[in-house]
């Protein structure tokens, strides 16, 4: 700010500020367009993949409140930022799940997909993180990549129940945190025998020479890869939608700021003109005297 009694306030400062705000507005508008175009492509694929996990839930039911010893929370987050609050929501939900599923003789571990989740969870739960995966979206998400990843995860963690946490894409402005529970084959058998929500697995005949436990093992692995694929796609969609709205509000803010700065600029300019005029006039009148 210029000190009191200065001759003329420089309009240069305000002009520089206006130039940088205008650049920011252009950048955020461009980012919004990019996110919108990417969203169109991913959204069709996400909607097509929504039928993938439904047969498993129809067969096995869903047991989110199952009580097991080893819980693994698989949190799907994004790698890039500037996408609003979706990663924070996922992390909050994961932390609450961790609290819910930890106890005297049960433990809960994290598997984190995506940089943003890792950064937030490493701060306070570093010991509970089993493994992290990043650069999910370097190439467009496809089932083969996710199947390999699911295989990797299943090889490295022991689990009784896997809980996959992601943001489900409902619309461009609405993303709801969702959690899918996948039980390990032993737990699934136990739950189905005990009755309860799993549904009557015993009523189903197993076709083929393999035993029930082998089939359940394959089933659990397949279910995990399908759920992970759908979850990754939904999260990618939510990320793009959130980025679109974040960049939109950011460019709108930049526009408002630009308006205010323009007014300030005009006031400053007029004030300096007035000051010069008054000086000239008072100087002239002093000469006439």
């Amino acid at each position, binding site marked *: 700010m210029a000190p009191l009694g200065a001759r003329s306030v420089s309009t240069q400062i305000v002009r520089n500020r206006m130039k940088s705000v205008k650049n920011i507005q252009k950048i955020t508008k461009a980012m919004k367009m990019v996110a919108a175009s990417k969203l169109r492509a991913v959204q069709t694929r996400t909607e097509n*993949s929504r039928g993938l996990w439904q047969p498993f839930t129809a067969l096995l039911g869903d047991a989110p*409140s199952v009580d097991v010893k080893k819980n693994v929370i698989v949190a799907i987050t994004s790698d890039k930022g500037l996408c609003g609050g979706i990663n924070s929501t996922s992390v909050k939900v994961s932390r609450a799940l961790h609290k819910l599923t930890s106890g005297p003789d049960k433990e809960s571990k994290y598997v984190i997909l995506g940089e943003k989740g890792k950064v937030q969870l490493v701060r306070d739960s570093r010991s509970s993180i089993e493994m992290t995966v990043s650069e999910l979206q370097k190439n467009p998400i496809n089932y083969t990549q996710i199947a390999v990843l699911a295989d990797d995860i299943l090889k490295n963690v022991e689990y009784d129940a896997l809980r996959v946490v992601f943001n489900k894409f409902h619309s461009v402005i609405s993303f709801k945190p969702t959690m899918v529970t996948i039980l390990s084959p032993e737990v699934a058998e136990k739950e189905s025998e005990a009755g309860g929500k799993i549904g009557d697995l015993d009523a189903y005949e197993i076709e083929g020479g393999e035993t029930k436990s082998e089939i359940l093992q394959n089933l659990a692995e397949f279910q995990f890869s*399908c759920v992970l694929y759908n979850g990754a796609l939904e999260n990618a969609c939510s990320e793009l939608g959130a980025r679109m709205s974040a960049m939109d509000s950011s460019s709108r803010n930049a526009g408002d700021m630009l308006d205010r700065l323009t007014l300030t600029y005009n006031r400053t300019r007029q004030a300096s003109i007035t000051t010069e005029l008054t000086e000239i006039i008072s100087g002239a009148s002093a000469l006439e005297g």
Partner: protein
Amino acid sequence: MLRHAARRLASRAAAAPTARRALATAEVPAEAAEDSTFVEAWKKVAPNLEAPKTPISLMQPRPPTPASIPTKLTVNFVLPYKSEIANKEVDMVIVPATTGQMGVLPGHVATIAELKPGVLSVHEGNDVTKYFVSSGFAFVHANSIADIVAVEAVPVDQIDPALVQKGLADFTAKLGSASTDLEKAEAQIGVDVHSALNAALTG
């Protein structure tokens, strides 16, 4: 005449909300299926955070087992990148289970079958649609709904016979020259899939 018009308007206005209300109640049960124990436990741990949604609340509930055998089988055939067949009523489905081709008719006993590479055929009246399926699972539920989840499927008429022969020859050669167990397993899988493709084209 205006009096009658007013009465008719009033009766239509009375009828419309009830019609709308009937539609509203028809939709609610599909959404309300949520796990209350989970929501309760969640509220204790994180009272300010909304509980995450679970799959049960996100899908339509399945119809219960009917008393008599229905006439048609409802088929859902899903792939990772699309739902090939969704809630279609057909007469019969033949799936390539690991034990061989398994025919599923309405009223089939509830089964879980793992699939091997082979031909899936859907019979509707006189139309038969054949797909070559890579592998996956098939669930037949007691309410005559069949869910088939496959990793990859192509209609049989889109398969190129020349490429199939070439692939078969390649993988047989690789199987012969494979040294480690992993290579042998990969080559064996290639041979199996290509022979199944061959059979699909001829059969």
